[in-house]
């Protein structure tokens, strides 16, 4: 192993997860942290800790200079970015390598290509991966836009080429609306981003969110099958499973092969996830984007394949070739993860930082709790609300759901509200039992069940 000392440029439960993997590989760890995070679990676990700045993330976890300085001062030879913060910042990956350190992730150029919506779509099409029907890149000519709209059919989503985070998105249901909305969307994009460029895409109305985990060493890639994350609130994943309960084997084979083809086409290095929309009536899948990092929900894949994804990405980025052969990756049983957030389901999921006065962690067969919590820990208000992930495995999906219900009943976090009551209801819901859901299922369900969440 080329890596001797790994700096973790992240916080919370993923920092804990990375330290565990590093320790099993005999690698020393350096945990950087903000002034608000001096007492976090990863700081207590790591071999060394360095305060890199004030609570505000822009001044600490997003401060590239401070992170590289900490690496230099501690003699770290590699940096793991986790997820969020700088994980998909190509400039950070470049800066880490320019400083003579190993970046535990893809090369900056891979992040750049896959992080750009239009470039990622072009790369996917070139690798033969189906994409959502739409314009190949931006459309500036209204006549051309009308022509594409006719060809792909309504409803159509109009997006700002320079946009992000849902801004500037319009949905047209027919040509009349399309004619009205195109100039509006262009004007709004121009005002918001200084660029009126648009692109258009077919709206896949009743889609499921299915994603494929891949590992690549820069030349070869393997897939570790799919996860389904259709249960979402405000585009945030709430409940994740592996494998998907609804994917026919022939479709699964095609989907996973397409992910490997795209990963190999861009010479992908490390762990990555290709996200797709899946129409369970037509069995069509469409690539939407690639996440060039380890994901929050990676444990469900680990539970069904037995592969330690975090350890593998450290090994690969440390220079070892991919040790896994595709034929050795098999699906065993079913895994489910739920996100335990510091949010109050009885108050419209208002975030609620506070002090953990008591903690009971579930155990028993097939039960895993990846968390940053300990008794007495003060959850700071400055970062996202994820406290931990409860993951269960069993031989069958129905067994896993029953185990999730049991494990949730065992979990006790006192001192602050959490999303546990939501998951307790979901684990006993008839539609969930039948896997009868899609990406827009949960929000109406939350409205209809609001009275049951007011505990």
């Amino acid at each position, binding site marked *: 192993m080329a890596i001797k000392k790994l700096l973790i440029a992240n916080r919370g439960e993923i920092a804990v997860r990375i330290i565990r993997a590093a320790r099993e590989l005999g690698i020393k760890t350096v945990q950087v942290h903000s002034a608000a995070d001096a007492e976090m679990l990863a700081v207590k676990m790591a071999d060394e800790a360095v305060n890199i700045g004030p*609570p*505000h993330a*822009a*001044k600490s976890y997003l401060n590239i200079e401070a992170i590289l300085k900490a690496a230099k001062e501690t003699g770290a030879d590699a940096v793991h970015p986790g997820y969020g913060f700088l994980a998909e910042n190509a400039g950070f990956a470049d800066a880490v390598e320019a400083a003579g350190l190993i970046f535990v992730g893809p090369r900056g150029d891979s992040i750049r290509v896959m992080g750009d919506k239009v470039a990622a779509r072009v790369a996917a099409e070139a690798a033969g991966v189906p994409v959502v029907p739409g314009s190949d890149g931006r459309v500036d000519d209204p006549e051309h836009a009308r022509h594409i709209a006719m060809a792909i059919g309504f409803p159509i989503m109009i997006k700002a080429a320079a946009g992000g985070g849902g801004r500037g998105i319009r949905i047209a249901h027919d040509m009349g609306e399309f004619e009205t909305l195109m100039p509006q969307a262009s004007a709004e994009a121009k005002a918001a981003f200084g660029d009126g460029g648009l692109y258009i895409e077919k709206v896949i109305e009743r889609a499921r969110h299915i994603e494929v985990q891949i590992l690549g060493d820069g030349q070869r890639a393997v897939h570790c099958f799919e996860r389904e994350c259709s249960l979402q609130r405000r585009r945030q994943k709430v409940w994740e499973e592996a494998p998907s309960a609804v994917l026919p084997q022939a479709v699964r084979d095609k989907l996973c092969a397409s992910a490997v083809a795209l990963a190999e086409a861009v010479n992908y290095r490390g762990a990555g996830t290709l996200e797709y929309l899946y129409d369970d009536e037509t069995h069509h899948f469409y690539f939407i984007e690639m996440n060039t990092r380890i994901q929050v929900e990676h444990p469900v894949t680990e539970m069904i394949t037995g592969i330690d994804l975090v350890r593998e990405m450290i090994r690969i980025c440390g220079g070892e070739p991919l040790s896994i052969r595709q034929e050795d990756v098999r699906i065993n049983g079913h895994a489910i993860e739920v996100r335990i957030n*510091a949010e109050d389901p009885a108050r419209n999921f208002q*975030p609620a*930082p506070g002090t953990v006065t008591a903690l009971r962690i579930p155990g028993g067969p097939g039960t895993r709790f990846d968390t940053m919590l300990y008794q007495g820990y003060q959850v700071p*208000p*400055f970062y996202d609300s994820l406290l931990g992930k409860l993951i269960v495995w069993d031989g069958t999906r129905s067994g896993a759901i029953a185990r999730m219900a049991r494990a949730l009943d065992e979990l006790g976090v006192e001192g602050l509200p959490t999303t546990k009551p939501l998951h307790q209801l979901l684990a006993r819901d008839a539609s969930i039992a039948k896997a009868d859901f899609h990406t827009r299922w949960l929000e109406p369900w939350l409205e209809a069940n609001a009275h049951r969440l007011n505990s």
Partner: protein
Amino acid sequence: MAQLLSPLPGTFYRRPSPDKPAYKNDGDKVAKGDVIGLIEVMKSFTEVKAEAAGKITFIAENEEPVMAGQPLAEIG
């Protein structure tokens, strides 16, 4: 002189977004109910409103971490 206290723990912002001007500047006249800043708690934003009318003087800075009950500004 009345102190305006932070209703929540989090990060205090004096602007609606990084590329926009501040809601209010020191010495501005504010009316009761005027938005004078935001508190970010775990990526969720809550508006802070003036509880009285008068001339505002800020105590907390933009992007400053604040505790619940910490004075953000004086209005008088």
